[in-house]
């Protein structure tokens, strides 16, 4: 049995006394693609932000490759992790945001080489070759010297994906990466994610409202409801034969998309 890449063990999260995640248990295998679906406010974003170390769990454990992310072992006891520990573990994790968050003062190429060079210590030439190759793959090989503001939303999001992929994370997190886009550019971004998913080696957790996309790309769909995982399983089982009323109702709203 292979060791899961990611493990959530009874993870709780509260914001100002309001518990938004109520005991999450979730495992992701290396290379596995997971779609996280659920109504607005159910906690999808919070789940992946905790893995990216942008939000701290209130209790519970998150492990990456068996190593606790938010905790450090000192003399056999788990204590709160420091910045150094967080940095070591989150090197395996990458994230693409709803609003791209490209660095506006850097060219497209620089956006994709800055972290490999400065964080990973990759040689500048090697980093540039990799970035160019990746940017060509997402169809932006002709925009290397452009600035983010000169690109459309769809193009910016493709750069953001490339920027994350060149870091070669073991798992990539996508938080509704098409929901801030004009409808006509959604397709191109989904296409890029599909291509990357096909290559296989990277695990992915995708928060999405695109049910068809979720079904095509995912090995497993996880349905989140009020801070708990209410149902999970193979895409066809979940989407075609939902067990719970809640999931049925939730899917009803997306029927037109199929």
């Amino acid at each position, binding site marked *: 049995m292979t060791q899961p890449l990611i493990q959530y063990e009874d993870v709780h999260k509260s914001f100002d006394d309001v518990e938004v995640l109520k005991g999450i248990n979730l495992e992701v295998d290396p290379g596995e693609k997971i779609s996280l679906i659920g109504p607005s406010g159910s906690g999808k974003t919070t789940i992946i932000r905790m893995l*990216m*170390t*942008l939000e701290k769990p209130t209790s519970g454990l998150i492990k990456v490759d068996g190593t606790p992310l938010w905790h450090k072992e000192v003399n056999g006891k788990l204590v709160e992790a420091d*910045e150094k520990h967080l*940095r070591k573990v*989150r*090197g395996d*994790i*990458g*994230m693409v*945001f709803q*609003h791209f*968050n*490209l*660095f*506006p*003062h850097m060219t497209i190429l620089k956006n994709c080489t*800055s*972290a490999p060079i*400065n*964080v*990973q210590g990759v040689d500048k030439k090697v980093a540039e070759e990799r970035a160019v190759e990746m940017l060509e793959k997402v169809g932006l090989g002709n925009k290397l010297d452009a*600035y983010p*503001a000169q690109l459309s939303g769809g193009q910016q999001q493709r750069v*953001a994906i490339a*920027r*994350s992929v060149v*870091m070669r994370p073991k798992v990539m997190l996508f938080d509704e990466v098409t929901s801030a886009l004009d409808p006509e550019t959604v397709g191109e971004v989904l296409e890029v994610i599909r291509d990357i998913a096909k290559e296989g080696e990277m695990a992915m957790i995708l928060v999405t409202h695109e049910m068809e996309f979720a079904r095509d790309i995912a090995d497993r769909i996880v349905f989140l409801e009020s801070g708990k995982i209410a149902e999970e399983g193979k895409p066809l089982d979940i989407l075609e034969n939902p067990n719970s009323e809640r999931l049925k109702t939730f899917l009803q709203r997306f029927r037109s998309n199929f």
Partner: protein
Amino acid sequence: MEGLDITLTVLIGSAIFGYSIAFIAGFGRLAKNVFIRKFTTVYIEIFRGTSLVVQLFWFFYVLPGLLGIELSSYMIGVITIGMNYGAYMSEVVRGSILAVPKGQYEAATALNMSRFQRMRFVILPQAIRMMLPEFGNYLIQMLKATSLVSIISMADITYVGLLYRDANTSEGVAVFTMLLVIYFIIALPLIYITRRLERWASKGVATE
């Protein structure tokens, strides 16, 4: 053009000192350490809450007696103007850093940058774009403030002008008009630079 060298060297000294103080105090206000934060806040409020003229006098007359250090008038002028404007400009530094959208910190974190790397590669380059036009405006104000060193008997253009008028009382109008023109001529390139900075700064900052 006597006194022009004094005016300009005081301006340059004050600017360099003031900008340095602005960064130190700006970061001090954002420090995690409570003591550093409080200390910086006290400094800023003291210098913003009292007048530059009084500060000049204080540094000139009180400080030597109090600490037994003799500083040249030039140093006193530069330190006082620098500390005073540094206090104001530290708020610009702090505000600009805080104005960089949260998403930029998060994206930098997602790329596994350290706290220092986030500042160095992502936050500061954008914050500085916001600071520079403000810094330009303060530079023009510092130029005007240099005229106050005449009260600690430094022979800047204002001082020279006043001396000249005392000797030729009938030419007061001409002298003051002349001073006005000179200050404006020095300010012109500063105004121009500030305008350019404003235009440059409007590019390359996250808007969201």
